[in-house]
């Protein structure tokens, strides 16, 4: 057993010190009947060489975004992860540390998370951010719970254009409470502002994703006015990269901003770990879930950092805590802080500009293909929906054979969109990649094309 230092001799000596005759005796408190029956049927043990062979075989059974030209997005995006981000996340001082309970021995974790919070505040324009949540979906759910507690109301409004998995997680978190969830209808791919009025009364929160699942910019200014008039808190689920160019949630009166931070330095990783973030107006600080790092001083007057406002949290307030969250995504938040610091003010903006430019180039190139139309007219950020003259599934299958994954079939998530694809573009796509998607679509769809 490579990870257990005790030798048989150590064990014997230690048992003698303890004053028992065998290891078995240490388990005397476990009823004998329960102990005797156990003979685990699990594979192993494997040597390192055997393990590597097995794992590489499993890994080889997956096609990755490097193996194909992939336009899959929908919340998890294939950006280049800078080597420095991986390097810092791989420092054992960070990744083999626990939650920073002993602040004096955890200043690295604490300061880097304080910097993460500060960076999220700068992106969102809001006054406070927490030390991270599991993912954008659970962050949205927690924001709804927070808004329900603040307003003491019992209804939430969720834009139907918010991501399907985000809406599903919100529903799970609220399943046990007596909360009415109203899904707001869309028009032209964005929330139908005229349909909002009917539901505002008594609502705690309006949750909107901006840009939404279809990549479209939502009418946040109009929604904001409606919310303000009705005392409804606006919660914006935002793509952090979009905030390099789009106005921050503070500008349109969002009380809380949440989002998925995977695009800030994490690989697609089959969807996990992800990174939820949450920022809020400072007046709601005491209602926030999760850890919050604050600056303070030590006995010599030097600056240092601690976990603060812990009285909100489960280990102190227990049943009355603002949330049950304990472990979060600290290391991924560190990665995001490194990523934002590395790209910096200009690099991050340049990245957003590239993504926007390539997405719009792609939209133009694809919609020029006969049998392909842009489904929605409104402005979009990094992804967009195309309608095909044939079922999207068939197109995906055929293009898959030539190593092109054209996007997500919207029909999996929305009725009546069986012919639609959500196409997502990052800085990793070259013009050639996009052109090959256009010609691929042409070949598959046009009457004279393959199939």
């Amino acid at each position: 057993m490579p990870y257990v230092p005790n030798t048989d001799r150590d064990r014997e000596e230690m048992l003698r010190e303890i004053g028992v005759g065998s290891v078995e005796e240490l388990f005397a408190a476990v009823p004998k009947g329960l102990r005797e029956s156990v003979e685990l049927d699990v594979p192993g043990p494997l040597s390192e060489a055997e393990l590597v062979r097995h794992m590489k075989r499993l890994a080889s059974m997956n096609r990755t975004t490097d193996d194909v030209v992939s336009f899959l997005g929908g919340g998890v995006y294939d950006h280049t992860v800078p080597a420095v981000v991986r390097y810092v996340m791989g420092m054992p001082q960070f990744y083999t540390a626990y939650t920073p309970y002993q602040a004096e021995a955890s200043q690295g974790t604490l300061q880097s998370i304080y910097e993460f919070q500060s960076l999220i505040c700068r992106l969102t324009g809001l006054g406070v951010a927490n030390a991270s949540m599991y993912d954008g979906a659970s962050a949205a759910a927690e924001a709804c719970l927070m808004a329900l507690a603040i307003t003491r109301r019992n209804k939430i409004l969720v834009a139907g254009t918010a991501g399907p998995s985000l809406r599903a997680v919100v529903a799970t978190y609220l399943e046990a409470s007596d909360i009415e969830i109203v899904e707001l209808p869309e028009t032209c791919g964005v929330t139908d502002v005229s349909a909002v009025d009917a539901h505002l009364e008594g609502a705690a929160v309006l949750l909107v994703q901006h840009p939404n699942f279809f990549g479209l910019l939502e009418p946040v200014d109009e929604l904001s006015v409606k919310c303000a008039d009705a005392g409804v808190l606006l919660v914006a689920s935002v793509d952090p990269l979009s905030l390099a160019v789009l106005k921050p949630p503070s500008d349109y009166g969002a009380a809380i901003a949440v989002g998925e931070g995977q695009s800030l330095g994490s690989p697609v990783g089959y969807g996990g770990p992800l990174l939820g973030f949450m920022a809020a107006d400072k007046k709601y600080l005491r209602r926030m879930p999760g850890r919050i790092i604050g600056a303070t001083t030590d006995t010599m007057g030097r600056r240092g950092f601690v976990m603060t406002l812990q009285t909100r949290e489960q280990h102190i307030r227990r049943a009355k805590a603002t949330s049950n969250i304990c472990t979060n995504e600290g290391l991924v938040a560190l990665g995001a802080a490194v990523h934002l610091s590395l790209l910096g003010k200009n690099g991050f903006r340049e990245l957003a500009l590239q993504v926007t430019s390539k997405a719009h180039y792609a939209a133009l190139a694809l919609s020029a293909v006969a049998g392909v139309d842009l489904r929605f007219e409104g402005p979009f950020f990094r992804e967009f929906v195309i309608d095909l003259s044939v079922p999207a599934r068939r197109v995906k299958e055929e293009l898959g054979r030539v190593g092109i994954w054209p996007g997500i079939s919207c029909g999996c998530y929305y009725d009546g969109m069986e012919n639609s694809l959500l196409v997502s573009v990052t800085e990793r796509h070259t013009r050639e990649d996009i052109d090959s998607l256009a010609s691929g679509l042409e070949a598959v769809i046009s009457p004279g094309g393959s199939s």
Partner: protein
Amino acid sequence: MSDPRKNGQTVEPTVFELSHPGRSGYRLPALDVPPADLAEVLGASNLRSTPPELPELSEPEVVRHFTRLAEMNFHVDRAMYPLGSCTMKYNPRINEEMAGLPGFTGVHPETTAAECQGAISLIYNLGRMLAEISGMDHVSIQPPAGASGELAGMLMVRAYQADQGNPRSKVIVPDTAHGTNPASLTLAGYEAVEIPSGPDGRIDVQVLAAAVDEETAAFMITNPNTLGVFESRIADIAEIVHGVGGLLYLDGANLNASLGVVRPGDAGFDVMHFNLHKTFATPHGGGGPGSGPVGVKSLLADYLPCPVARRDERKALGFEYDFDYDRPKSIGKVHAVYGNFLVAVKAYAYILTLGPQGLRRVAENAVLNANYLQKKLEPFFELPFPGLCQHEFVLSASRQKEQGVRALDVAKRLLDYGLHSPTVYFPLVVKEALMIEPTETESRASLDRFVDVMKAIAEESASSPELVTGAPTGTPVSRLDESLAAKELDVAWGKT
């Protein structure tokens, strides 16, 4: 008056203080399509007027900043980290390498099942292995952390009870419970009913019998509990809870003591969560990412989080593994995708490396190390619950308190000796608690060193308590003012 946190002495400047206009640490590819006119394509009214004030640094500056921060951290690669109930064991390097294989990191979650059989098979088979280890029938790896697993478990309890005719209103927890337990069951719509532990630190079966009724949806316990003792009367406990139609929930935080020795599923538990970042050696990352799979007996299978990984050996669809989304009774999703997959990869590799005998050796040595430490430390600190322990035990600094030294001071003094402190002030039933979990990956020499240091601190507490109350002095910063942090909040740079 200037705020010393902004203008005073610093050990390491913030990344904002290091910023220098015009620097950049990363080069993007040259844009090979026409640059978009942002106002035109996004709409002028949607744009921000000034770019977000991110720092501007070159790559070496970024690396140095975070390296210097890293150097200020204590971590388990350096020395013993005996936080009770946290299972700070060694994180095998090979597992990190395996989780970093491009064939795992590069898989997009929308990849069709046929194209990612390796990933789905890993999720499926890790679930099977965890089920075998725990004696549960089914395991979902979707919950991304222990508390998320608790929520999923409790929502399944609720769905099950509702299907029996009444979701019920209460969940019982012992007074030694982790804070997440009452917080999670509250989120699942239940009222927490706390019962006091008996004089031996175990559940008082009579008290439990009196507490349960037809409104009891479940009893939620940790076993071995947070005092490090196994609930010997688990069969009676299960009978009492099941007798009123309740379910038995296991908080698996302390599963390390049971690997290969006893299976919760055999002991009457109906539902449990695992902490892969404790028992299965995946790193804590300074607070995550973790992974909190939830396991259930068959009676709860229909309610598992959606989707559920499944296997078809006959490959009717042309492949062996996929996800089942057709789960009408499921509690739904607790994670945006499938959970913390790359964490699951590490746990999977860990189990394969250990095999059945290795897993048992983990539990045996964890329990051996804890008992050895307990025995050696007993002369110097109060041991409120004497007798053999499992993987952890709880001391009290009550003797030291009379000398003016509190558990917190002992914790801080340990840092000066280059060791991490135990968990302090938990569980709540022990005054001045020091909760110690050495884990199986500490050597006897490392345990002896810890004993020597604890003995020295006990002696200092008697002879020169100011050394202890003034600690730490050997850390990058000395004792930090938590009151100031809470009263005059500074939680983001440049914002007040």
